[in-house]
């Protein structure tokens, strides 16, 4: 078991299975939000189902669309369980705050290297802590 600290985040505590890549992330550019899979061919997670996973990627990219889309994904049950990024942008934080989706960024280490796909992780945004179980 290892503990990774980050900045205080948004949302409540969740436990789930990690889906990890070192790529960046946009809800508009990278996802088929109806099927719940990564649809961008050049993305390392192309074809992967992200629904209910603790999604771990490098940086938020792209524009305003994510702010509405994250909440829509949560309501339609096509959302990840939580989102962890090395580097958030305002839109992703605004989207997570609107969706009440657990969200953290700025960790003590590169979060995409510290956690592997398939790991079980406990995400505690208010404590600023991720535990790999």
């Amino acid at each position: 078991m290892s503990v990774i600290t980050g900045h205080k985040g948004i949302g409540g505590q969740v436990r789930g299975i990690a889906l990890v890549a070192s790529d960046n992330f946009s809800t508009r550019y990278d996802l088929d939000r109806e099927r719940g899979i990564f649809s961008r061919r050049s993305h390392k997670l192309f074809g992967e189902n992200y629904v209910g996973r603790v999604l771990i990627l490098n940086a938020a990219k792209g524009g305003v669309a994510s702010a509405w889309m994250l909440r829509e994904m949560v309501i339609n049950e096509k959302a990840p369980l939580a989102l962890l990024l090395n580097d958030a942008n305002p839109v992703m934080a605004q989207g997570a705050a609107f969706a009440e989706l657990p969200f953290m960024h700025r960790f003590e280490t590169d979060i995409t290297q510290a956690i592997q796909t398939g790991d079980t992780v406990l995400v505690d945004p208010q404590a600023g802590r991720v535990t790999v179980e």
Partner: protein
Amino acid sequence: MRLTEIEEAMQAGVLGKGAEWAIAYQKRVGEFFEAENFAEIRFAHMITDAETLGASGLAFLEEMAEMPAEDRRLRTLAIVDSRGFDDRAFERLLPGKPLVGDTQRAIDALGRMGAMKAHGYFNNHSVPLPAFGESCAFSGTPTVVYANAMVGVRCNFEAGPSAIAAMLTGRVPRYGFHLDVSRRGTDYFKLEGKPSNTADWGAVGAIIGRQLASYWKVPVIDGIAERPDAISLNHLALCLASYGSHAMFHVVGVTPEARDAQDAFGDPPPEPTVVTQADIDAFHREYDGDGETLDVVALGAPQLTMPEVYTVAETLAGRPVHDRTTLLVYTPLEIKEACQRTGIAQQIEDAGGLLVHGPDFFATFAKEIRETKGWTRLMTQSVKTANITEGYGYQPVAASLADCIESAVAGRIVRTA
């Protein structure tokens, strides 16, 4: 965050339910980014389209518009981009599908709340231009990056719900590009390549954006051989936003906070990274499709200015668009109507092109259109359009406006240069 008296009143619910929701929401975001207080804004501007909003976003807006007036009072000049929806064009693109309603419903809901319905962005000067140093709340990323870098306005990306919260409170959390320290350059680029069209400038933005890929990094571009025009800078800006999530940049000798490199950094500049012509050419080759048959030419992102629409007509020069290719020219409604008055619209339509107003191609059912029409090969003068449509299953190519038109006429991808 430190709150003023009026902000405390909003938080306590004294100034209505809308402001109470908005200030609490803004505080969550502000505290996430360690904002110390709020910045009052000159105005808030929001774009909206049905695809981005989704059903839940639309329901949120309509519920807010239904609240009693004192609960949803706006506390700043609020403008919503009401680009409308081109029913006639979509009757051709997606016949028989009911698409019109949702975007208009969202705009109507914001109108009932007291937002002014205007077309376009301030970067095409159809809504008021803020003054240097003023804080604003804009939901459109191209507007934010252009406002910060080109005009010296202070703003962060304030996406949909965030722009609405800013309308309700008249302020935004003061972090990011509201602060002098965040606006300084972080990374230095020397441009040895010679971009010659919008696709090249977009490629420069994409190359730098991909490399830095962080909202918080501020690229400084130096060494430009020839001063780019505002349209080219707009393509550079929106590709920095699209590929790198950037909201601020400097071009030395061009943008107002970069009279020289020292001015941009506030310190002596670091060692530069060189962007060569070979880098720009290599970027374009990633989307290579020379000679292949072409399904659609989508011109927009940003929507075309009136001089660009004229260029489309002049380049067509009366030649018809090839039968197997659809030419879509996206432009704001006012410009479309102006082009109808001057006869330019008719010239494009006589050639078989379609002048489309309303949100851009990528924001209006591009995926559904591809599936319905069986399209794959797309050509555009906008690298941003190429970037987004690739995610929707297209095989895009970005090239000069002239090459896009030549290709539309030939029915296959041609490059003249």
